[in-house]
């Protein structure tokens, strides 16, 4: 690792400085290398092996067998579909509500700081615990959700939310939306605060209405943040089975199992080969998605500054 010069470009380093910097980086690299990347590479290898903790007498190389088993596994195919419903169903409301909240929070009002601290709090609670909280609230007999819905006459009889396959997915998505709105609001609010006031003043002078301002000024100005936040959220929602674990454990009848929660279950059963194969497929799909997504949002970003330059 050769240090050349500082960010400011003013200072050049001797070999000794390079050595000191390397020593500073080393602990982080050792930790992450040993406990994250080494197991990751081993995991990739296991995906192509017969590696079951319950019977380690034969851990031979089996090629794509684990992947074939999975693709033929009806339960796995079900979890793929559930994952899509889970991601899309959680993301869209989170985005819309989070964006609206950020727009409301942009201007100063009394107690805004306290308000933000309260509303942002769920972020610090684990998804698993959120799952437990909502498991209690969505309880079919003693749950507060049914009670409130019946008091407001939205339903007449209690709904067995977590026992009935038709409603369980709705219930976990509602919990996840509650949990995730805040992150969107934070990221979008941070981006909104970087939009210069002059842009809004100019659009007001030009007589643009609220909707027009939103689509012509606000959204284009924070497009990059919006796009990256959505990408991160897709990956994150896909990879976060904690809430489902706490709320339904994947039930009833595996109706709320997503790929990653199924993967954890298979890991705990000891079939590391099959679990790793599942993990590898998740990574592959997410990477392909990320590449296409980034390609899809890139051209517009390049165009915008050009227009400004021409004007």
């Amino acid at each position, binding site marked *: 690792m050769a*240090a050349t010069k500082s960010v400011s470009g003013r200072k050049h380093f001797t070999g000794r400085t390079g050595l000191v910097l390397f020593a500073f980086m080393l602990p982080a690299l050792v930790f*992450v290398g040993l406990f994250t990347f080494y197991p990751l590479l081993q995991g990739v290898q296991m995906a192509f092996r017969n590696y079951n903790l319950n019977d380690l007498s034969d851990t031979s190389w089996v090629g794509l067998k684990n992947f074939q088993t999975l693709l033929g596994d009806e339960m796995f195919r079900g979890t793929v579909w559930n994952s899509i419903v889970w991601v899309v169903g959680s993301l869209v409301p989170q985005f819309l509500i989070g964006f609206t909240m950020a727009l409301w929070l942009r201007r100063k009002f009394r107690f805004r700081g306290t308000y933000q601290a309260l509303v942002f709090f769920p972020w610090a609670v684990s998804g698993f615990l959120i799952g437990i909280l909502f498991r209690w609230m969505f309880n079919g007999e003693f749950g507060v959700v049914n*009670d409130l819905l019946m008091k407001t006459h939205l339903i007449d009889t209690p709904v067995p939310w977590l026992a009935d396959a038709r409603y369980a997915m709705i219930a976990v998505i509602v919990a996840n939306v509650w949990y995730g709105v805040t992150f969107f609001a934070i990221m979008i609010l941070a981006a909104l605060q970087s939009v210069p006031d002059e842009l809004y003043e100019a659009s007001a002078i030009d007589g643009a209405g609220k909707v027009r301002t939103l689509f012509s000024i606000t959204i284009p100005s924070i497009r990059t943040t919006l796009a990256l936040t959505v990408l991160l959220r897709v990956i994150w929602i896909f990879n976060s089975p904690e809430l489902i674990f706490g709320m339904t454990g994947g039930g009833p009848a595996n109706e709320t199992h997503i790929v990653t929660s199924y993967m954890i279950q298979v890991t705990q059963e000891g079939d590391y080969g099959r679990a790793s194969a599942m993990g590898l497929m998740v990574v592959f799909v997410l990477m392909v998605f990320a590449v296409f997504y980034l390609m899809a949002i890139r051209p517009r970003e390049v165009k915008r500054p050009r227009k400004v330059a021409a004007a």
Partner: protein
Amino acid sequence: MIRHESIAGRIVKYAGLGLCLLITVFPLYWILVTSFKDPGTIFAYPLRYWPEKWSLDNYTGLFEQSNFAVYLGNSLIVSTVAAALATVVSLLSAYVLARFEFRSKGAVMGAFLVTQMIPGFIALGALYVLMTRMYLVDSRWGLMLVYVAVSIPLCTVMLRGFFENVPASLEEAAMVDGCSRLSALFRVLVPVMTPGIAASYIFNFVNCWNELFLSVTLLNSDSNKTVPAALNGFISSYNIDWGSMSAAAVLSILPTMVLFAFASRYIVEGLTSGAVKE
């Protein structure tokens, strides 16, 4: 701002904000109220939105029926130490990544970001095998080391964002005065960056405190269990004792709530500035 909001617009905005607040706070309120209800009235119908009689029975029951004090202690030790170690290690790497250009810098940043996108538990099986070989399975110290590794990438990115808000001339001046790089970092930069470092530490602590799958996989004896693993044990049993469960939930939220109240502003700042700079 030139344009003023219409009165109707304001009403919609404040009603919306009020509703969001209500919806956010309600589940937390509900679990808190449940935990203080007399065990007999938890399953009473109609539901009580305000307990008639406040009772600590759920809490005493929790500590009598399980080793919850031990779980709390384990979580506290593992999270406190792991968060501290991760913060110190990240401080060093963040300093290098914020201040210097070198050839493999892009690769290091890329590797750190990849760990955020690929869920750690993809390698859960392989990690278990590695830990077995190192005789670190079912050890709180083993779990701690893994938590340090898991915390480093994001903590480094956060601290790097904070470093970039401090001018480099500060430690350069100290080094001209004869400080070594390490002592300049700890004597000059760390005091200036205290809020950011505290926020990073709290962020690490909260993440370790909340972690479930690693602790369930790597620890198996009851005396080593952390709080999330214990909660997982409670819900795995067929009949959930919702009284004890809500008391346990309240106790496990409390520390993060207190810490987050102090640091949320700085955490958000660190995450957004770190992310924007990248």
